C-alpha cells in the first residue's frame, strides 16, 4: 500500500518523527454495517514541527486526532487497524491505563468549543490541580503555582483570580486560554489542537493562534493542528496534510502545497479561496458533494467530483505515494 521507506519529516533537524501514524483505519459501526471514516491515514510529525490537517467538516480530521489520543467514542467508533507509534510504543495497543499516562503529560489536546469543553461545576484551578496531581507528585500549593504560572504565560489577565473562577465567569477567548494552559501545564511533547479558533471572534482567533505558535516555538513542541481554514494553515503550518472523505490526499511542506498543489482536490480548495493578488478572479467551487460514507465509490473517493478522473480512478483506489517529502494519492496529478 503506502511505501513508507525514506519518509522524512522536513522540519526537524534530526529527522526522527515524534509521532508516526501508519495506515490508520478508524470505523464507525452503524445498523447498516461498519464504515471507515478514516481510511489508510499515514503521517509523521517531526520534532518542533507544526503539521496542519486540513479538510471539510466531516472528512475525518477530528476522528484522526481522537484516534491518536485514544479518545474515540467507542462504541460505535473504533480503530480497526494501523499503528500510532509514539516513543517506541504503538498507542493503539497500549492498555487504557498506560494511555492515560501519555495524555496531558506527553500528548495534550485542546478542543474546538471552549464553551462546552470545560467542566462547569469545578473552578479552573480545581481541574488544573487535578490534572497536575494525577501525573506528578506535587502538593496543592505547587500545583497552584504551576497553574498560575502557565495561565499567566498563555496571556490570561489576572491569573491568580482566574484560578478560582468557574468557566461561566470567563469569556470565550479566556476559556480557550484556560484550555491551552491546562494542555501545556505538564509541558507535553505534542499538542493536538482541534479547530482551536473556530468558535472564537475573529480578533481573538488571531491572538490565540499567535499564542499557540509562540508556545510551540518556545517549548520546541510538536503540534498537530486541525483546521478547515487555509488562512490559519498559511500562517502557522510547517507541513500540511489535506484530507478528503477520510483519506489524506496530499501532504507537503506548506509553501510547496500553496504554490504547487498536485491533487485536484487541493487545487479545487485553493481555487475556491479569494486571493488579494488576483482581483476580480471568480472563485471556483468544487462541483458536487462529499459522498456519504455508506456510498463511497469503489475507486478514488474524489473521482465523482474530479475534473480529471480517468477510467482507472473509478475502479482502483490510488495508493498514498511519497516522493521527496511530498505525499500524494492520485493517479492523474495535474499542474496547477
Amino acid at each position, binding site marked *: 500500500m503506502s511505501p513508507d521507506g525514506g519518509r522524512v519529516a522536513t522540519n526537524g533537524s534530526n529527522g526522527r518523527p515524534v509521532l508516526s501514524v501508519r495506515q490508520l483505519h478508524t470505523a464507525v459501526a452503524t445498523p447498516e454495517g461498519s464504515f471507515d471514516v478514516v481510511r489508510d491515514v499515514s503521517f509523521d510529525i517531526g520534532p518542533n514541527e507544526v503539521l496542519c490537517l486540513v479538510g471539510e467538516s466531516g472528512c475525518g480530521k477530528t476522528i484522526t486526532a481522537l484516534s491518536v489520543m485514544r479518545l474515540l467514542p467507542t462504541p460505535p467508533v473504533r480503530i480497526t487497524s494501523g499503528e500510532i507509534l509514539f516513543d517506541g510504543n504503538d498507542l493503539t495497543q497500549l492498555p*487504557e491505563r498506560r494511555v492515560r499516562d501519555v495524555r*496531558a503529560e506527553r500528548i495534550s489536546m485542546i478542543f474546538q468549543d471552549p464553551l462546552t469543553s470545560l467542566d*462547569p461545576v469545578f473552578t479552573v484551578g480545581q*481541574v488544573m490541580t487535578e490534572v497536575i496531581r494525577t501525573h506528578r507528585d506535587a502538593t496543592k500549593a505547587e500545583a497552584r503555582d504551576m497553574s498560575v504560572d502557565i495561565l499567566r504565560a498563555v496571556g490570561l489577565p489576572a491569573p491568580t483570580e482566574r484560578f478560582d473562577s468557574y468557566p461561566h465567569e470567563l469569556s470565550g477567548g479566556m476559556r480557550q486560554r484556560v484550555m491551552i494552559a491546562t494542555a501545556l501545564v505538564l509541558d507535553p511533547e505534542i499538542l493536538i489542537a482541534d479547530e482551536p479558533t473556530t468558535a472564537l471572534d475573529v480578533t481573538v482567533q488571531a491572538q490565540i493562534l499567535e499564542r499557540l505558535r509562540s508556545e510551540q516555538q518556545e517549548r520546541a513542541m510538536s503540534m498537530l493542528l486541525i483546521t478547515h481554514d487555509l488562512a490559519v494553515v498559511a500562517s502557522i503550518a510547517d507541513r500540511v496534510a489535506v484530507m478528503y472523505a477520510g483519506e489524506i490526499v496530499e501532504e507537503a511542506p506548506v509553501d510547496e502545497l500553496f504554490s504547487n498543489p498536485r491533487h485536484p482536490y487541493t487545487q479545487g480548495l485553493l481555487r475556491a479561496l479569494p486571493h488579494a493578488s488576483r482581483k476580480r478572479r471568480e472563485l471556483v467551487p468544487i462541483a458536487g458533494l462529499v459522498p456519504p460514507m455508506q456510498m463511497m465509490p469503489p475507486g478514488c473517493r474524489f473521482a465523482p467530483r474530479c475534473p480529471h478522473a480517468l477510467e482507472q480512478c473509478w475502479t482502483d483506489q490510488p495508493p498514498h505515494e511519497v516522493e521527496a517529502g511530498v505525499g500524494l494519492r492520485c493517479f492523474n496529478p495535474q499542474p496547477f
Partner: protein
Amino acid sequence: MKRIAARSVYTLIVLLLSSIAVFYAIRLSGGDAVSARLPASASYEDREEFRELLGLNDPVHEQYFRYMGRLLTFDLGKSLTNNADIFEMLTHHGKNSLILGAAAFLLVFVIGVPLGILAAVRRNSWADGSVMTFSVAGMAVPNFWLALLSVWLFASTLGWLPSAGCCSLKQLILPAVVLAMEGIALTVRMTRSAMLENLGQDFVRTLRAGGLSEASIVGKHVLRNAMVPIISLAGLRIGQIVGYALVVETIFGWPGLGQVLVNAVLRRDYPVAQFFSLVLIAIVVLSNWLADVGYTVANPRLRKA
C-alpha cells in the same frame, strides 16, 4: 440573592392563602366537634350552648381573624375533643413524624443515587434493566397498596418485622421504606438520566484528554454535574414525603402528625385540624423554597448571577 428574596415573599403569600382555604374547607365539610365532645343524649339546647361557647356560630371570617390573631401570639389552643394542648401534640407527634420522614428522606438518596449511578455506568446491562424495572414498579405501585403488601409479606407471612407501632428501629423499617419508595424510584431515574446526559458532554472528553482516571471523571466530575438537578429537587421530595405520611402513618399506626391530622379531620376537631394542616402546608411550601435555594447552591452558574 434577589431570586431567594422574591421566593421568600411568594412563600409567605402561599401560606396566608392556604390558611384561609384550610379554614373554610374544614367548615364546609359539614358536622362539627360537638357530636364528638357531647354524649349522644345531649339536648339540642345543650349542643347550641356548646357551639356558642366555642364561637362556632359566629360568621366564619370572624372566627378566622380570631384564630389567626391567637396563632400569631403563639396561642395554639386546645383540642375540642379531648382538651389536649396542641403545642404538646406538636412536639410529641412532630418528633415521631420527623424520625419517620428523615429516615425516608435519607433512604431516597442513600438508595436512589447509587442505584442510578450503577444503571448509568452499566447502561443496557442486566443491572441497568433490573434497576429500571424496580424503578418503574416503585413509581407505579400506590403506596397504600405497597404498605399492605409489605405488612402481609414481612409481618404476617415471614414474621421478620412488626406490622405496626412505634418507635423502635424494627418498627421504623417498613413505614420508612414504603414512604421512601416513590422518591427512590424517581431519584434512580433522575440520577441515571443526568449521569448519562453529562457523560456525553464535551467536558468529559477534555477531562479524559487530561489523563484523569475514569473513576474520578465519573465519580467526581460527572456525578457533581448530575447532582445539580437532584439536589435542586431534594426539596420536592420532602413535600412528597409529607403528603404520603398521612397514609403511611395511618396504616402503620405510627403516631405522627399525619395520623393526628387524619383523626382530627374525621372528628371535626377544628383547631387541631387547622393547625396541623397549616404545619404540613408550611413544610411543603418550605421544601419548595428549599428546592429553589438548593438549585442555586448546587449550580455555580446561578450563584453570582
